[in-house]
C-alpha cells in the first residue's frame, strides 16, 4: 500500500515565544525545532499499516527550508519511513492553504491510498491542512482520529468529541489526521538511525501560492496580575472560597 505522511518541523513545545523585529513573526534565534508532536502519531500509524499489509511504501512530505528541517525529517526515516520529499520554499508568508496546495501537488503524483498527518501543527494551531488536502484530492477526511482500524478498502475511526466518542466509517482513499493517543510512537532503533542516513531525501524547489490568511501583527498575551498565596494547608480553603465569592465573584 502506498502511504503518504505529511509532516512539519515546528518550534518545540517548550519554546518561550518572543516576537521578531518585524512584529509579525516569531524570533527564531533561540528556538529549537522538532518534528511536530502530532505528526509522530501519524508516522507511527503509517508504519503499522505498512507492516500489517506486508508491503508498501511510506513517504514523508514536508514543506520548508531543507537546511533547517532536514535533520528532524530524517528522524522520521529513522523510525521506518522509506523516503522523504522536502518542498523547498520561502516559509515567511506561508499559510495553511499554501502548504496544502504544495503538498497536494506533490502527493498526487505519488498516488497514495491514504494520507496521514498530525491534527495540527503546534505553532500556528490552524488545523486546516488535512481538510484542505482532502478537498483538493476530492477525498473524505476524518480529523483528530484517536483509534483507527483498516480492513480491505474500508476504515473505522474513532474521534473524541465533547463528552463522547464518534465512530466514523468510511472507504479509502482518505485523509486521516492524528490526535495524541492514536498509538504509542516507537523510538528509532540504532539500526533505524543508521539506515536513515542512506534513505533518499529529495529536495524540490517549489513556488508557494499567495496566502489567503495574513498575519498583520503578533502580540504577547497580557500578563496576568501577580498571583497571591492565600495561605497554607486546609485552613486556607474557606478563605479561598470566600474570595472567589466576594472578590472574584465567580461562584
Amino acid at each position, binding site marked *: 500500500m502506498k502511504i503518504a505522511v505529511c509532516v512539519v518541523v515546528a518550534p518545540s513545545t517548550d519554546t518561550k515565544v518572543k516576537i521578531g523585529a518585524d512584529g509579525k513573526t516569531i524570533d527564531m534565534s533561540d528556538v529549537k525545532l522538532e518534528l511536530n508532536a502530532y505528526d509522530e502519531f501519524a508516522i507511527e500509524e503509517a508504519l503499522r499499516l505498512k507492516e500489517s499489509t506486508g508491503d508498501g511504501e511510506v513517504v514523508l512530505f514536508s514543506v520548508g527550508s531543507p537546511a533547517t528541517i532536514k535533520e528532524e525529517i530524517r528522524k522520521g526515516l529513522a523510525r521506518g519511513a522509506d523516503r522523504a520529499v522536502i518542498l523547498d520554499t520561502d516559509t515567511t508568508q506561508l499559510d495553511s492553504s499554501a502548504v496544502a496546495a504544495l503538498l497536494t501537488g506533490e502527493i498526487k503524483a505519488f498516488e497514495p491510498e491514504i494520507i496521514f498527518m498530525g491534527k495540527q501543527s503546534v505553532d500556528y494551531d490552524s488545523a486546516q491542512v488535512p481538510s484542505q488536502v482532502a478537498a483538493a484530492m476530492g477525498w473524505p477526511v476524518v480529523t483528530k482520529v484517536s483509534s483507527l482500524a483498516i480492513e480491505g478498502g474500508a476504515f473505522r475511526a474513532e474521534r473524541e468529541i465533547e463528552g463522547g466518542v464518534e465512530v466514523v466509517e468510511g472507504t479509502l482513499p482518505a485523509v486521516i489526521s492524528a490526535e495524541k493517543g492514536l498509538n504509542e510512537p516507537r523510538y528509532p532503533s540504532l539500526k533505524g538511525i543508521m539506515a536513515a542516513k542512506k534513505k533518499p531525501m529529495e529536495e524540490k524547489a517549489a513556488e508557494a501560492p499567495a496566502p489567503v490568511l495574513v498575519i498583520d501583527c503578533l502580540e*504577547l498575551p497580557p500578563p496576568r496580575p501577580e*498571583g497571591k498565596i492565600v495561605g497554607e494547608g486546609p485552613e486556607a480553603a474557606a478563605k479561598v472560597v470566600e474570595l472567589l465569592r466576594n472578590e472574584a465573584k465567580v461562584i
Partner: protein
Amino acid sequence: MSVLAFCEVRDGRCKKAAFEAITAAKKLAADLGGSVTAVVVGHNIQDDAKKLAAWGAERILAADHEFLALYSTGGYGRCLVQAVELAQPKAVIVPATIMGKDLAAWTAAKLGVPLASDCTEFKVEDGALRVRRPVFAGKALAWTHGEGEPFVLGLRPNTMAAEEINPGGEGSVEPLPLTFDPSTIRAVVKEITGGDKGDLDVAEAEIVVAGGRGVGGPEGFEPLRELAKVLGAAVGASRAAVDAGWIDHAAQVGQTGKVVSPNLYIAIGISGAIQHLAGMRTAKVIVAINKDPEAPIFKVADYGIVGDLVEVVPALTEAFQKALA
C-alpha cells in the same frame, strides 16, 4: 449583506456555542452594516431552529434530514456551502467546537476562502474585518485578515457570552433541501459512544478542576472528581498525568491537549510547565494548590494554597459545599 452563523446541534438540541455564534454574528453584522442569518443542520430540529430568533437570528435556514441525524464532514459541509451560496455572507461564524472546527476547515477549503480558527476577538476597521486568534497554544496572539470572501471565523467557546435579546421570540424557518445523494458521502459518523458518562468537556465547562503529577496516581483524581461534582465542573489534567496513564487524553489541558478559557480553573498538584500555562492562562480566575511554594503555577494563580493535596482538596470541597448550600 449578511453574517452567517452556524448553529451546532447535538442530540437534537442547539448547543450553547450556537447561541454564542449568533451573538457574535449580531455584533459583527452591526459593525459591517448587515443582518444575521442562522443555519442549522440535523434531524427533527425545526423547534430549536425557529427559537434562534430569540438570540437575534433574522433569517433561519434549516437542513433537516434523516441522513443528517449524525455528523459527516461531507454532508454537513455541503449544507453549509449551500447556506453560504444562498445567504452570500461577508463572514461565516462557526463555533470552534470539535464539530465546528472540522466543519469550518472542510467548508473553507471547499469554498477556497480564508478561515481563522479559534478566534477570540474581532474588529472592523475602515470596513475591513480583522480577527485575533491565539497561536502557539496561546503563547502569542495573532491579528489576521483574510483575502477573499466570505471570511470564515471559528469562534472559541466561552469567549463571548450569548445574549438572548428577544426572549420567547420565534422566526420562520426556510428549509435547505438536500442537494446531494447521501450515498456519495464516503465517511459518515455511525454512532456516538460513551455519551452516557455525561462527562463535561474541559473546553466547554465554565469551571475546570485539573490535576497533575502531584495527585500521585489514577486514584488521586477521585477527590478532584468529588470537588468537580460539587461545582458542576469538568475534570482536566496536565500532560504529566495523561502520559502516566492516570486519566484519558480527552482531559489534557495545554499545548498538546485542549486550550481552555473557563471562569474558574483550579490547578491541583500541577507545577505549571510552559505548555500547560499556555493552555489555561486565559481562564478568568485561577486557583492553585501545590505543596511547593516555588511552583511556577503560583505566578499565574489569583489565589494559591500551599499544602498537601490530600488535606486541602477535601477541605476545599467542604468549603464550596457550605458556600453553595
